[in-house]
């Protein structure tokens, strides 16, 4: 049993921590969020330069040979600063698909672009009727000569406005919610027949609605075997869930620290409000919710390579914990800051919003509870 970090891992944390301290204060983030682009390509390039985008890839793939713990460290630091750049989408999710299911040729062709920061990716999977069910797909890919033709609609594709490559889940056979018959395709966002409508999300990021109309893709663009992609999708989205949990604990810690600090300094009735026992107990509950979330984040990060059922239980359980704790901590941080907590000017509300949306990403509390119960 050992929950300590290696020297390299501590070094990685220090590197990203000081980068963000220099380049990602709250005012800078606010400007980035409000800018036309909504993200900072030059910061992305800096992340690449420091090797952050290479962290979870093996050395043979040109990476630094890190794993889930390295991703956890990075995501926690990103969460603490509410970094909007698409590390989760590009490195964790798309990188995960290429790592876990990509052919040698695909890995060779695409991973260097991700590591080098030249290419931004995202995963287009959700459909309006499907809610969080990864298998509920109306988007189809029909065999057409040597390749496929894609038709369908993907909703709330986070980071798509910044992306040049999409990984798209589509049905090559089977009924709308069958586990079999799902395939994954690498699609150029600029391909003929792909059209996007971009918009801002409430947590400071950007997303697109994407229509695929007779989009032609080569057979070489398929990741894994035809019709057999769901287990791979589940594996990679569980990795994404672990990363989201890490992001969440980064934000929770910030909120708890800010709230305790505020309650020590804000005076009403002649005393710091932190002297009121009801608020003390509230902050103790927030602290306990955070510690339980850290535990679940470590747990899921250490279980990503277990068999599918064990992994699913770990990911679903962690996501439930994070969803509940994020809601409680977010709401109470605002509450204990009083009117100040409601202002756009303070960072507190922004962490609250991000934690709220983390619950929605890759399935909310109810969905993950069901999944946990089904996997048990």
């Amino acid at each position, binding site marked *: 049993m050992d929950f300590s970090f290696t020297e390299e891992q501590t070094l990685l944390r220090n590197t990203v921590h000081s980068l963000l301290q220099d380049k990602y204060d709250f005012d800078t983030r606010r400007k980035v969020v409000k800018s036309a682009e909504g993200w900072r390509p030059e910061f992305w390039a800096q992340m690449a330069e420091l090797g952050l985008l290479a962290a979870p890839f093996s050395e043979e793939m040109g990476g630094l040979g890190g794993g889930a713990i390295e991703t956890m460290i990075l995501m926690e630091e990103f969460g603490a600063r509410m970094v909007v750049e698409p590390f989760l989408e590009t490195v964790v999710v798309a990188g995960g698909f290429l790592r876990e299911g990509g052919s040698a040729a695909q890995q060779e062709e695409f991973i260097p672009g991700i590591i080098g920061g030249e290419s931004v990716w995202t995963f287009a999977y959700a459909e309006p009727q499907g809610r969080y069910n990864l298998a509920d797909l109306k988007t189809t890919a029909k065999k057409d000569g040597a390749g496929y033709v894609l038709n369908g609609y993907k909703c709330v594709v986070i980071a798509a406005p910044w992306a040049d490559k999409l990984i798209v889940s589509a049905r090559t056979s089977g009924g709308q919610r069958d586990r079999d018959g799902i395939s994954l395709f690498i699609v150029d966002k600029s391909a003929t027949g792909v059209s996007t409508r971009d918009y801002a999300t409430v947590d400071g990021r950007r997303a697109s609605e994407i229509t695929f109309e007779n989009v032609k893709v080569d057979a070489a663009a398929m990741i894994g075997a035809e019709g057999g992609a769901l287990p791979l999708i589940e594996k990679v989205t569980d990795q994404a869930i672990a990363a989201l949990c890490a992001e969440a604990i980064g934000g929770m810690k910030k909120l708890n620290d800010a709230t305790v600090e505020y309650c020590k300094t804000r005076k009403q009735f002649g005393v710091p409000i932190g002297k009121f026992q009801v608020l003390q107990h509230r902050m103790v509950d927030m602290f306990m919710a955070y510690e339980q979330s850290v535990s679940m984040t470590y747990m899921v990060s250490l279980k990503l390579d277990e068999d599918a059922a064990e992994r699913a239980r770990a990911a679903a359980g962690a996501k439930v914990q994070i969803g509940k704790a994020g809601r409680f901590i977010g709401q109470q941080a605002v509450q204990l800051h009083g*009117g100040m907590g409601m202002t756009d000017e303070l960072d507190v509300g922004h962490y609250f919003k991000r934690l709220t949306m983390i619950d929605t990403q890759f399935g909310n509390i109810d969905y993950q509870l069901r999944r946990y119960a089904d996997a048990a």
Partner: protein
Amino acid sequence: MDMSFSPDDLAFRDEVKAFIADNYPAELKAKRARSEMTKDEILAWQRVLHKKGWVAPHWPKQYGGCEWSITQRFIWNEACAQAETTPLLPFGLAMVGPVIYTFGNEEQKAKFLPRILSGDDWWCQGYSEPGAGSDLASLKTRAVREGDHYIVNGHKIWTTLAQHADWIFCLVRTDPSAKAQEGISFLLIDMKTPGITVRPIITIDGSHEVNEVFLEDVKVPVENLIGEENKGWTYAKFLLGNERSGIAGVARSKKSIERLKTIAKAELIDGEPLMKTDEFSRKVAELEIDLTALEVTELRTLAAESHGRGPGPEASILKVKGTEIQQRITELTLEAVGNYGFVQAPLGDAANSNDFLAGPEYAPGVAQNYFNMRKTSIYGGSNEIQANIIAKMVLGL
């Protein structure tokens, strides 16, 4: 004991429903929130009601009110909520109006009450200060008497919709040597007076609802003092009691739950309506049960009030439970819309009729509404402060 409507009540219900159906301004029907409305739009419904004489159901007739019974007011609130009419601004009608007709002199009544009813004067509430929120009595804004004027200096904050206001009612300190509650006076101040600056505060949902109001050597005629100098705390408490009960919002919550159900019927989970799933329908059922309890609690409180008792500290129950329910409805609505909860609806200056709004028409703004409604457990005396009041005044702890 009797909870049923009399034939007269039923006739009254038909009458108000028909009136709303025939007279609610058509152009307001598409507006979701006040933050999307112009000043004229916010006031349009009040102007219609004013013409009809129905703008102040709870005011005495002699001042232009309806003196409706609690049952009639209940019916009226339900009918307005069902038709989703713009809520009337509380600052004049529910807050300062009753203070003026209860504690003001004849000139003040004649000058202010008609313009409150008509909406010609827009009022805002200048209580809170940066250093005086929950501990309102520690407020520092000073009013110094100089001849027939007060000279007011201070800094108010969180002033809702002050950007549109013609008048502000302020708590000011007139006797700095007295005990906190005893040196406070209740002053009416014309927002056009030189020395007043309004600075916007944007809230986490992106809307401009609250402001800071700076007062610098603002000259206020002494005839704008309500009641007696240094007795302002009494009037302020009277007003806060009214504010707390108004905050329960039962009828509006019923409508919001209806909306939530409509959404949950349209949203699918594995091909089935979300509303058909056990976990979701039970959460909605729990909410409805809590709301039913609150509704009857409110009716009990109002009935006691109409017999000359209250609104006592029991009003705090309405505030706490009412806001908790409102917050849970918005939370559950956000849950219901699933992935489309991410969509940010452009608000205020950023809004444009050509904006692309992703997802079903009910989705954009749902998250922002959830964020915005966190305010309800903070304002009007935070829910922690309400618990303190109940503990002290009701339980005697």
